């Protein structure tokens, strides 16, 4: 379990760095990277505000690459799910009820603010396949 957390935090760190294009991340603070989402102090000190937490999911053959993606975010974080898929379907985040169509070979971005604590499934709606499991911790 601990391994999983560390692994997912590392993955997140990588995606955040890649996503923001910032290059100063030595990514040693594994737990802190999950809470990259803006706090007022950081916006004041660093001129370009830190972007929302990005969670990347790659769908191959209608299934999530590397298994169901599990991520934790804190309540009130801004989150973007970036789903790259080789099949056409509808990406649906339960609970927050955000859904977006994705074309075969396309990418869908689902943006939401994590206001409700709990665990939420992300599904390929038409296939009924779960691709991610987002935990919003209070």
């Amino acid at each position: 379990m601990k391994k999983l957390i560390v692994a997912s935090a590392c993955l997140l760190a990588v995606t955040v760095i890649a996503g923001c294009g910032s290059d100063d991340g030595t990514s040693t603070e594994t737990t802190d990277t999950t809470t990259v989402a803006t706090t007022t102090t950081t916006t004041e000190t660093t001129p370009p505000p830190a972007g929302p937490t990005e969670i990347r999911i790659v769908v191959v053959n209608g299934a999530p690459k590397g298994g169901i993606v599990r991520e934790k975010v804190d309540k009130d974080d801004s989150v973007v799910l970036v789903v790259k898929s080789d099949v056409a379907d509808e990406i649906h985040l339960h609970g927050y009820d955000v859904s977006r169509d994705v074309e075969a070979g396309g990418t869908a971005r689902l943006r939401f603010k994590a206001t409700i604590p709990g665990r939420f499934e992300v599904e390929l709606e038409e296939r009924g396949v779960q691709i991610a499991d987002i935990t919003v911790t209070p």
Partner: protein
Amino acid sequence: MRLLAHGIGVVRDLPIPAIYFFIGAAVVLGASFVLLFFLWRRPLLEAHTGGRRLPPAFSRLVLSRAVRILLGTLSVALLGLTLATALFGTTTELLNFAPTFIYVIFWLGIPLLSVLFGNVWSALSPWRALADAAVWVLELGGREARPVLEWTGRWGRYPAAAALFAFVALELTNPRPFYPRTLGIATALYTYWALAGMAVYGREPWTRYGEGFAVAFRLLARMAPFAVRDGSVVVRWPFTGLAGDDRTRGALVFVAVLLGSTSFDGFSRSSTWQDLVGNLRVELAGSSQRTVDLATTFLNLGGLAFFVAAILATYLAAVAAAEKLGRGDRSLVPDFVLPLVPIAAAYLAAHYFTSFVITGQFIIPLISDPFGRGWDLLGTAEFAPNLAIVSPETVWYVQVAALIVGHVAGLAIAHDRAVVVFQGRRTALEAQLPMLGLMVLYTLGGMWILTRG
């Protein structure tokens, strides 16, 4: 962005933190030993089963024909609406009235009412109401409504257990359990099962042994502080209705289906099971959707059957040990079935509390637009459910508290039964140990599943 009034499976519980688990476990173990060593030595519960009669005027009102007709009409109308929306409404699962009504309002709401107020299903069952109406019409025409065959009792409660298993299998093994058309066909089939059974064997036998929901709700209602005796409503101590044994064939299997399905539901949402299903789908990536769905269904069916079998096996093992220690000469299998009922109710409460309070709210917009056509019949279509209505901490307290209450109640009932069954205090105490172990296992097992992320 497209917003859907999405309901079922909307928010799942966060796993309970280890500290809640350990505190819960400590209370369970402590309470168990206190109960075992310091409590009563003579059976207590059976004496209280009767209860105290409520004023006759109240009983007459509650049990009146007018109330039955009113509730029956309402429930038949709801059955009709469920069938119509499931078969002809939108196929977008959660814009349709049927899925939320069946899985949340009916399947979670009626057990709650049964535990609180007694066997309400006898007045709320649409199938019973239809059968009553059919008999009434026949008798009006001067004919006698007689069952085709006599119920011999040979099959015991197995038909009801099979019916309940079919329902939980539909809910828990099918990759798309909320798909309205599937639910429409299932509702039609179940309606046939309930009505045909009552026509063939008579209303009362089929309600007691064949109609799975009626049997489940009646069993849960035995916990309730209210009951009906000889035409009047009585009030009694909760759980006293579970005193005694249950010698109906298949009683154990029925309870095992109830317990096993709820625990499998919890386990199937854990990452362990989800990854198993996910891997299977990856393995079958090249196959058709139908093959993948079928394989998923079979995997889930295996899991469900395993959980039911595990409940049966552990119960039988504990009873065998108790028989050995008690040196009795008869089977004790029927004696400790009823103590499992509060545990089953606790499982239901712990696993479905969030679903009920959060998903239940979606029925408010759905009732205004049951077919998902953009109607607003009652002006509630725009109602926005509050998904953050309960905090995770509240959910954890409710879950742990439900399991502890269920456990203590089950244990007290089992203890009461043990002092009836075993002669001599020493034997009674020794022979109770396996049952105590069994119940601790069920309660901690149920709690452990809740800690799984």
